[in-house]
């Protein structure tokens, strides 16, 4: 006679245990546009940081004998009106733009997550105070505030990053606040309280891990927004000041050449557009991968 096995004792033991993170990673890897975008993004950022070294020219080396040259082997992107190599300047500009965007997303995420979590978890007057602060920041026309503050504190890349962070943390805070409010009513939070966990532990261990997904997606959107805003401000002359190049002020400096040498304007613009495009695909992939209800295989 064959042995009878207690079915209950075997249930769920068949397959290997996959954590949510591993499952998400698996879904992400299968999201083709996101993977291609991630690859191209990495390539782009590596180029920004290292391609400039391949050239023999410094970013601020002026050579008046070679003004406004078209792309050549020596100067792949041509030169500007005082003969500086545009390839090196564009790469370095991209580097500064990406740096600003990264600093902004790091700082804005930190501020937004902390304030959002506090508002969401403690509620009551704390929530009212933080939410009203967010509303205040959101209703003031962003560009005007940015223009004023950038005038005063901008100039350097770090200054601009601080100004942008001060404005962009609100979106993260709202998302985190919402997710925290949703999760703090979950029964497992009550269960955690019932075993004697303190508020700090409950937020850090039981609520924030559930927030990570939404925040990651939000960070990608933030990176895109930051790079566009940085370029806009620098284009308007309110952001990073020359001689430090950024993608924005490169477009600004060569905007007069749109008829004669369109490539000079389009190249930095091309980098801004594709950076944002890839970032958005990446965010899309993350959103699908991190949605526990996603049916995508």
């Amino acid at each position: 006679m064959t042995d009878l096995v207690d079915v209950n004792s075997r249930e769920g033991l068949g397959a290997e245990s996959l954590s949510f993170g591993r499952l998400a990673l698996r879904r992400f890897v299968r999201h083709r546009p996101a993977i291609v975008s991630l690859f191209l993004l990495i390539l782009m950022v590596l180029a920004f940081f290292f391609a400039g070294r391949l050239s023999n020219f410094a970013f601020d080396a002026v050579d008046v004998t070679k003004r406004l040259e078209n792309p050549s082997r020596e100067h792949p992107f041509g030169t500007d009106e005082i003969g500086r190599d545009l390839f090196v300047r564009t790469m370095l500009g991209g580097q500064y733009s990406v740096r600003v965007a990264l600093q902004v997303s790091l700082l804005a995420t930190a501020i937004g997550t902390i304030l959002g979590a506090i508002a969401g978890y403690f509620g009551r007057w704390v929530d009212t105070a933080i939410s009203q602060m967010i509303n205040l920041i959101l209703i003031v026309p962003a560009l005007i505030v940015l223009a004023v503050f950038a005038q005063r504190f901008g100039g350097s890349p770090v200054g601009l990053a601080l100004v942008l962070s001060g404005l962009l943390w609100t979106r993260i805070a709202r998302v985190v606040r919402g997710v925290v409010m949703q999760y703090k009513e979950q029964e497992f939070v009550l269960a955690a309280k019932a075993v004697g966990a303190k508020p700090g532990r409950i937020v850090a261990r039981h609520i924030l891990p559930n927030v990570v997904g939404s925040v990651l997606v939000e960070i990608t959107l933030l990176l895109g927004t930051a790079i566009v805003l940085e370029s806009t401000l620098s284009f308007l002359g309110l952001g990073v000041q020359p001689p430090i190049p950024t993608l924005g002020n490169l477009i600004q400096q060569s905007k007069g050449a749109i008829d004669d040498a369109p490539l000079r304007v389009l190249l930095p613009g091309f980098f801004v557009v594709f950076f944002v495009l890839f970032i958005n695909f990446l965010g899309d992939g993350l959103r699908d991968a991190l949605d526990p209800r996603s049916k995508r295989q």
Partner: protein
Amino acid sequence: MTFLLDVKGLNVRFRTEFGLVHAVNEVSFSVSKGETLAVVGESGSGKSVTALALMRLLDRTALIDGEASFEGVNLFTMSEKEMQKIRGARIGMIFQDPMTALNPVFTVGDQIAEVVLIHRDCTKQEAKTRAIEMMGLVGIPDSRRRVDQYPHEFSGGMRQRAMIAMAIANSPSLLIADEPTTALDVTVQAQVMEVIRSVQESIGLTVMLITHDLGLVAGFADRIQVMYAGQLVETAERDRIFYETRNPYTRALLDSIPSQLGVPGTELKTIGGNPPSLLSPPPGCLFQPRCVHATEDCRMTRPELKSVGQNHLSRCLRSSDLGVLR
């Protein structure tokens, strides 16, 4: 005889935009060590609120007064910090829905070990060993492998076992089980109750079981306490509740249990009507509008909890002339 838990005059009121809701009114009871007390009543009778009030897990809109002495300290006057040391260490609690009471992002073992780490000074490895041991105790097979699994890999019954393991990981003296089987299949309910019983025997636990299922209680409780509309209406040893019922509400509850010998086609007995609004309770007996024995007097006079036998209390104006209800 000393009691493990002695509650006196517990009142819980909720502030709402419509006024104060009297969810629990002047409830007094005690539980002796090693005993199993079942608190029975329909939805909204205040049984869960009583449990959450004892754990001080109600939110700020709740106003609690009364006294709850547990192991010689009053749960309602101690600081939140002291209370955190009681929860999960001296009093364990299990909840109704094991599907949502476990955090989906951590392994089951992590969550049991966390309870140990919160209250004890030990290493993570020791806590995990304790978690495996606890999982074995509550009958989770293959606990060495199960410990690294996530809640979604567990069935409902298994999750409830894991919740029990969490609740008893620090060997508390009191376990409050708030409808521990309501969300489970009927076949699994008996298994889970069996787990609670065996754990109770092996570590000498006192159990306060909250349920609306009198059938479940029949084989499990030492004493039963019936609640209705925030009040205690009858309390006695188990057999007296079942065979010497003195309160019309308890009788109506017992009659609502579907009989397994019933003739197909006969209608289920129910209690007509709804419980009264706890926002503005009527002046007389709270069960009077639904009571088959109600008289004019019941409408005007609020009955007191009276002794009707050995350790047997009932809240009914007519308890002496109605006698044992069948």
